[in-house]
């Protein structure tokens, strides 16, 4: 066990995977010499060279498109989008090409690429650099979707993503990079596609992912001090989605909250709430509550920014209301 940051765990995963699999290349803006806008690929160019850490021009559609072509011809590319907010330029290459190629071509070939990016609020980066757009991805058949909350998962989910036969969108959270945890990277990882029960309690089940797992755990601790015991489920991957674990706990407890930083309407929070509501209908004592991003853009003002997405205090406040 050693203390490590989320950023370093990601970097370690890239480094280890690239050593084991020579077909892996990283391509994106500033991934090489600069070491990544958030430092995730720092110095990797020294070990693996500029042929494998490929600095690209600022051409997001072509970055993703080139990764698709590379993945079809023998490489295992990691295409980096500096911010998930740039997804809008690339959804054609991602959703019409990467996601559909295996299907359209009758199973002849797959697109084993990873799209690494980061999202979320926390840096006063404004409306075009703070979004949580995983909802668009989850709504696109053919794309796997991983969103690590913990340092351990940052490492293992990225390693696992790099073994998958289909395109994986891997979304980091910009506010987690400096988070430090004790980790043992040599331990047996949880299987891909399996949710983690981060905490168990009999009063309420909180289903979430990415940074909101941290908030939910903090909230659960606050709640525990008031005698409320929450189960916190970290989904880890949204596609595949481990609904069995969710079902099991919701059926046991009877009360569920879903938390997502993405805007509430028609996104991940909606899917999770719909799914629990339909599959655990007879076990629910009250409606599933959605705690999610407001249906508004993100402001640059720190006050408005943090006020517009779920937080430890909002989760705790809502949980108390649910149990009062």
């Amino acid at each position: 066990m050693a203390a490590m940051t989320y950023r370093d765990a990601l970097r370690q995963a890239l480094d280890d995977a690239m050593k084991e699999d020579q077909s892996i290349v990283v391509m994106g803006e500033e991934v090489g010499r600069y070491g990544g806008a958030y430092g995730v690929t720092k110095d990797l160019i020294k070990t693996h060279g500029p042929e494998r850490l490929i600095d690209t021009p600022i051409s997001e559609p072509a970055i993703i498109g080139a990764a698709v072509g590379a993945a079809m011809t023998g490489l295992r590319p990691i295409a980096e989008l500096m911010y998930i907010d740039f997804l809008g330029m690339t959804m054609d290459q991602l959703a019409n090409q990467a996601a559909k190629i295996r299907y359209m071509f009758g199973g002849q070939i797959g697109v084993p690429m990873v799209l690494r990016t980061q999202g979320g609020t926390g840096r006063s980066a404004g409306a075009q650099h703070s979004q949580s757009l995983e909802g668009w991805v989850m709504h696109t058949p053919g794309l796997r979707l991983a969103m690590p909350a913990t340092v351990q998962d940052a490492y293992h989910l990225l390693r696992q993503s790099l073994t998958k036969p289909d395109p994986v969108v891997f979304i980091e959270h910009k506010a987690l990079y400096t988070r430090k945890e004790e980790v043992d990277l040599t331990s047996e990882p949880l299987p891909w596609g399996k949710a983690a029960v981060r905490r168990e309690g009999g009063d309420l089940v909180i289903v979430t992912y990415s940074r909101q797992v941290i908030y939910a755990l903090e909230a659960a601790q606050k709640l525990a001090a008031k005698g409320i015991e929450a189960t916190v489920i970290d989904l880890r991957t949204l596609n595949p989605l481990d609904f069995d674990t969710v079902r099991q706990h919701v059926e046991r407890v009877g009360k569920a909250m879903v938390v997502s930083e993405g805007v509430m309407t028609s996104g991940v929070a909606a899917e999770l709430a719909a799914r629990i509501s339909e599959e655990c209908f007879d076990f629910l004592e009250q409606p599933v509550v959605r705690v999610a991003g407001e249906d508004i853009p993100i402001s640059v003002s720190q006050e408005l920014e943090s006020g517009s997405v779920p937080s430890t205090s909002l989760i705790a406040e809502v949980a108390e209301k649910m149990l009062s």
Partner: protein
Amino acid sequence: MNLKPNTNLSSLYRTMRRIRTFEERVGELFIRGQSAGSMLHLSIGEESSAAGVCAVMKPQDTFTTHHRGHGIFLARGADPKRMMAEIGGKETGYCHGKGGSMHIADMALGHLGANAIVGGGIPAVVGAGLSSKRLKQDSVSVAFFGDGAMQQGILYESMNMAALWDLPVLFVCINNQYGMGTRIDQATRNTAFDQRAKAFGLNGTVVNGLDVEEVQAAARWLMDEARNGKPGFLSVEVYRFFGHARMDKSPYRDEAEELEGRKKDPVLFARNKLIETGLETEPALDETDRTIAAEMDATIDFTVESKAPQLNTMFRDVYAVGEPEPEPVRTRIDRVLAREDV
């Protein structure tokens, strides 16, 4: 740039004739109500671009095409039966009826896929070029697209990357003068497309598509250069003989223009050249044409006799075999409604 032809015009003619006849049969399939939909884009009039470029490709080379890609794939050596069956949406087709005319692909022949998104298949060749360079595949990857795609930004992003990274990549614009009903001069101010490629640091040239040997010569030069790391761009000037797709009667252009345009017939031109130069006799060519006609007739029968794919195959191939699969809507609903059993 050496434009002296150095190939077998007979074989180029044969390729072009096969394309033309195949496309005529596609039209027939549609008329017989056996095609999957009406989004069938015929490459009649453009055969020289497919034949000329594919003739200089090596077995290890790869390519992507646009929506008007039947001819290119045939020139590359496709089985016309499996092509036609795919156009009919049948299980015997290249993609088992999932792709159709606009999404044919074949890894065995390096066909990385046709595309229904104008420009959508272009950046993939940059990636294939990267693979080629890094994995030493000695292959060139060729993107075929129409003049319409000259106004899609992703083309320039792709050209720029190919030039920056010295990739073995060739961009081929089949300039048939139209994007649907829009004549090329209604889509852009400057149609000297080679200037654009050169501005991004690529080799670039424009060639008249009437003479397939000229196309081939230009393609050979660019392909050789590309294989050595200098990417290129080729624009082949042809004329789209018929409407954009099967339903389009081209009301936006007049008959005089069409008649004039159809004079630019690369198949006829090659035929005449073969006869004039004494390389072939008219009867021999007639025989060639008849053999091809018979071969292509058979594609229709094959398609008509093939079955539609089984309904449950629709859940296959979303993800790789053995990976978690999508849950059918009915299964979900049945579970949700069967709750009294819990």
